């Protein structure tokens, strides 16, 4: 997936991932890259991805299906139905529950009486872990272990990553409902800031090197924005194209 195709999708361009069919982050699937494009009904990602895992298992392929949901999906029926089946069939399946404290405007304490979200997966017989979602290396280690476990026939896992949504639900949402002191507290734990500090402390990178990487990223994105804005919009005569395979 390239930044050009992603921005093209957000701008409704003919060259976006969904060719102008789907909005913002949705519909950005590409089977060649092993990515399933999700729908706005996020809990639907769970069973669809389990289907991929079951296909790998049935064909004895050493592949694993991984899916990402937020805290908001843990209260939906598909979450529980899917984890029940994943454990029942020992599927090569890894679920990442990104607990970012809010489902749109609703804080976790108003979503559920059981705020330990990993425990909601555990009751179905899925192996679980709860980790700091802002620790980049910790996330990488935990997910790698879960993937290896699934790949070697050890069964499904669910990993709850504790984090914070620092912006609104989408750009239209100012998120005034989030207390300012909560945001200030989590600002200190920004994963990029924390990781940068750690790299410098360990001597893995200098401040100057990291500034250069940041500048490089900025330049890439500036270039992508300049380029993709000039991409053509879809031709209205193609409205019905691709409805059927």
């Amino acid at each position, binding site marked *: 997936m390239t930044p050009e195709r992603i921005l093209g999708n957000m701008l409704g361009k003919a060259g976006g*991932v969904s060719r102008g069919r*789907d909005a913002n982050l949705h519909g950005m699937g590409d089977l060649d890259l092993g990515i399933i494009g999700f729908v706005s009904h996020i809990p639907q990602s769970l069973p669809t991805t389990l*289907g*991929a895992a079951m296909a*790998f298992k049935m064909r004895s392929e050493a592949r694993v299906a991984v899916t990402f949901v937020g805290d908001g999906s843990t209260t939906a029926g598909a979450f529980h139905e899917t984890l029940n089946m994943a454990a029942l069939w020992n599927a090569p399946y890894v679920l990442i529950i990104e607990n970012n404290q809010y489902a749109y405007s609703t804080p976790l304490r108003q979503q559920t009486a059981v705020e330990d979200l990993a425990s909601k997966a555990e009751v179905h017989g899925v192996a679980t872990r709860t980790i700091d979602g802002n620790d980049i290396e910790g996330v990488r280690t935990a997910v790698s272990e879960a993937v290896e476990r699934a790949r070697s026939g050890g069964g499904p896992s669910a990993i709850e990553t504790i984090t914070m949504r620092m912006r609104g639900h989408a750009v239209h949402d100012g998120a005034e409902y989030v207390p300012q002191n909560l945001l200030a507290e989590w600002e200190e734990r920004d994963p990029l800031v924390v990781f940068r500090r750690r790299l410098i402390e360990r001597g893995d990178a200098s401040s100057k090197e990291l500034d250069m990487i940041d500048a490089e990223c900025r330049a890439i994105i500036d270039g992508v924005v300049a380029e993709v804005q000039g991409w053509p919009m879809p031709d209205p005569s193609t409205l019905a194209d691709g409805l059927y395979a």
Partner: protein
Amino acid sequence: MSENFGFSRSEVSSGRELTYLEAIAEAIAYEMERDDRVLVLGEDVGGSFGGAFKVTKGLADRFGDERVLNTPIAELSFTGMATGMALMGMRPIVEMQFADFISTAFDSIVQFAATNHYRWGAAVPWVIRAPSDGGIRSGPFHSQNPEAWFVHTPGLKVVAPSTPSDAKGLLLAAIRDDNPVIYFEAKPLYRSVRGYVPDGDHVVPIGPAVIRREGSDLTIIVYGTMVHEALEAAAALSVDGIEATVVDLRTLKPLDEEAVLEAARRTGKVIVCHAANRMLGVGAEVASLIAEEAFDHLDGPVVRLGGADTPVPFSPPLEDAYRPNAATIEAAARRLAAY
């Protein structure tokens, strides 16, 4: 009832007669044998039990428990799972134990599967078998005909066979289709209808309707169980010299508009009838199509017959009052013929 359904006498005598249910079972086994991407999943389909209606009986012995996958009660998610399997190249056949339960799986069908190819170009080749229809005293939750929801959903295909031959042929076509197909099988026909079914690779393409009977006075447009009611009505009308064309739609989406309009223009009078409730049913779309495209050829109002706008009731006198049948079709046809 044993009928030829348009096959010649010689074809029938050289062929095999199967029930509608046997024809469905034959199609599934044939395709599982031919293509190892095909699997069956659903509630109670596996083991020695073989499903609520025994359509999948014996399949688990033949193809194993993984390809005849018994699921827990979780229609939303096992249907969603079928979408993921299909995206990864499998060809799942989901048995919805009763078509009535399909509402539970609505998101998986209409939001994910139906939109997928349009959104990002990946095919979802699954089939949902939905045992539908009533008239057999099964009550509000085992008698429904929810096809209109899915005909209204862009990206799906919807079929509804009425004969054993079409039951096999349309199921083979549905499994081989690269799109999500909902296959409404009529429970009342499972064991009541027998007919000639070609051996081997018998595919009935998704799309074309078929004329079950020719007549110049009026047209009766039907599908599923109502095909048999319409043919019975047409036979009774013929005694009095009223000759009806009976069009069996077979595929509801995409609708065979040409077949509908050809019959409407030729006969000038049309009844469209289904067991699903009449309100915003398939018949409403057919009637609108005729009004828009064949108005100049009409010699009477397009008549819609369908279920009442109520749940399907259990008690026999109530259910009989709910659904159309040969007698109500015949009565409507006599009124229309005299119009």
